[in-house]
């Protein structure tokens, strides 16, 4: 058991290390560097050399990678391309805001998606299932920027309940960007519900057709007791990993939604950094998001190991 957890941990660490290597090499491989970005048209001759020397770009790649990576391990992502700001400070509030957004979406989305998915699965092919499943397909297929735009159209423009475009600084108190927060997390919640619900539904259908549910019926166990005691614990185990993927996606892939709503999170910072060719910031954000992705999946793996008696003692027996 412990050995298995260690193995997962090690694999996670290797993945994070690989990500850092990919990011570093990727940026290295790109034409131009921080100095060409800062100096733009003046990026030639002496000015360029000076800048590179100042930023330590003249040293070979490997030492630079080691310096960069050890910096990250200590929580220091270095300076922005312009050399004006510490990335760690720039990113701090953005991480908080993105976490807030994710937390908002998850706290509503997870319980709701499990509820709806279970209902759709139990009443398979009835109107309630058709309604939910069609809704899920719609929610999954309509692009985020479309649903976001429609929400703005309805709630900001037609109903006027929230301001349409706001510009809130990243370090504002959470209450100040509450309107953006509500709309953005609604879009994300819808999308998330669609994905998790479909998975829960098919899992519930599988489990309800299993031998042990049939046996419980033939043991005289009342229907709802079967659902809650025999079926759901088994149906929801595989959902853990799907939820983890969704969480990871919420942390990193919500670029579009943050841009549409002008939400001061990591995603928008990423787009701004790319537009401004601020590669150190891009690297930093990518590292944070990738580490979160790996971490969340790791937690899910370990959680399902702990919750699934089959996996748990399988490991014990083989020892």
């Amino acid at each position, binding site marked *: 058991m412990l050995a298995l957890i260690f193995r997962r941990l090690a694999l996670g660490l290797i993945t994070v290390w690989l990500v850092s290597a990919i990011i570093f090499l990727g940026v290295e491989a790109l034409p131009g560097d921080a100095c060409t970005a800062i100096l733009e048209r003046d990026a030639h001759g002496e000015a360029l050399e000076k800048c590179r020397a100042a930023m330590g770009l003249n040293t070979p790649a490997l030492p630079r990678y080691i310096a960069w990576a050890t910096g990250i391990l200590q929580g220091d992502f270095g300076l922005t391309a312009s050399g004006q700001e510490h990335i760690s400070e720039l990113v701090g509030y953005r991480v908080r805001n993105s976490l807030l957004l994710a937390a908002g979406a998850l706290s509503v989305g997870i319980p709701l998606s499990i509820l709806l998915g279970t209902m759709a699965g139990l009443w398979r092919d009835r109107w309630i299932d058709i309604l939910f499943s069609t809704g899920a397909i719609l929610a999954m297929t309509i692009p985020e920027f479309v649903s976001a735009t429609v929400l*703005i159209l309805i709630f900001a423009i037609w109903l006027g309940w929230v301001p349409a475009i706001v510009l809130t600084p990243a370090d504002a108190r959470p209450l100040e960007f509450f309107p953006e927060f509500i709309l953005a997390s609604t879009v994300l919640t819808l999308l998330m519900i669609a994905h998790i619900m479909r998975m829960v539904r098919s899992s519930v259908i599988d489990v309800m057709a299993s031998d042990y549910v049939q046996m419980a019926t033939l043991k005289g166990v009342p229907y709802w007791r079967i659902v809650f005691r025999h079926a759901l614990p088994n149906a929801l185990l595989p959902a853990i990993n*799907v939820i983890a993927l*969704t969480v990871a*996606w919420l942390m990193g892939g919500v670029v579009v939604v943050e841009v549409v709503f002008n939400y001061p999170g990591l995603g928008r910072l*990423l787009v701004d950094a790319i537009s401004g060719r601020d590669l150190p910031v891009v690297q930093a954000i990518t590292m944070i998001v990738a580490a979160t992705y790996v971490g969340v999946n790791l937690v899910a793996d370990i959680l399902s190991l702990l919750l699934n008696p089959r996996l748990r003692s399988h490991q014990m027996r083989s020892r």
Partner: protein
Amino acid sequence: MSAATPGLSVRAANVLRDVLARPSGAVGLTLVALHLVIALVSPWIVPFDYKAMNAAMTLAGPSDLHWLGTDHLGRDVLSRVLLGGREALVVTGIATPVAMLWGGLLGVFLGLRGGWTDEILMRLVDAFLALPGILPLLVLITVFGSGGAVLMPTLAFFFGIPVIRVARAAAHEVVARDFISAARARGHRPFDIVRREIMPNVTDTLLVEGAMRWSWMLLGFSALSFLGFGVAPPRPDWGLMVSDARVYMSLAPWGVIAPVIALSTLIIGINLTADALAKTLGLDQGRKAVV
């Protein structure tokens, strides 16, 4: 293999018939076909030049002249909507099969082979999957520009990575079966085992996966355009149109609604088709999410 060809096309015809027999399949395929036809013929049927501006008539509502009104530059929205899917369809229509092919083949080989190669490459796959969403695309596009020549290979590469995982998992299921053991025991080369024994058993999975990936790639493509990293103006593209018209949404909602409907119907069509295909092929159980 020649003996298999008629059998294969018969099966394809049967599958197509069964897909069309389902309401979701009929609706889905009709929508997709409609979009393909429009994309094909639109240059000859559009009422206006897509870049012809009319300063006198900006943000006009629907009228006899401009059925869907005009945008902020006075361009005809209908013409732009009809043309707006062409680039997306061409790019994703080529990039999706390429992604399925390389991801699928590599995944199947890894599934059969296992061992260290598998272990190492899967870690790399994990690492790529951990990169946030469309970031690699954004970076490459900012550096190399956003033409189809950049977008197509980039999309094909990055969308192929999750396919490796799916194909590998599908291959694992097949490899565990005795007919693979039988083929190995006879001494066939791995390439022949993949081609004759494994591939025919994973094509169903890859087909459904491909349809889903296509819709996700379309979503990604229009998101790029929306963010300003995709199709360059003044060429028409749905994502770009939504982005442009968003600002004038309160004045001219048609400018947003029309491309939104166009894009959504295409993606819904693909998804309904994929859904019906999965049900027809008996693969609808246990679908995984995002990635």
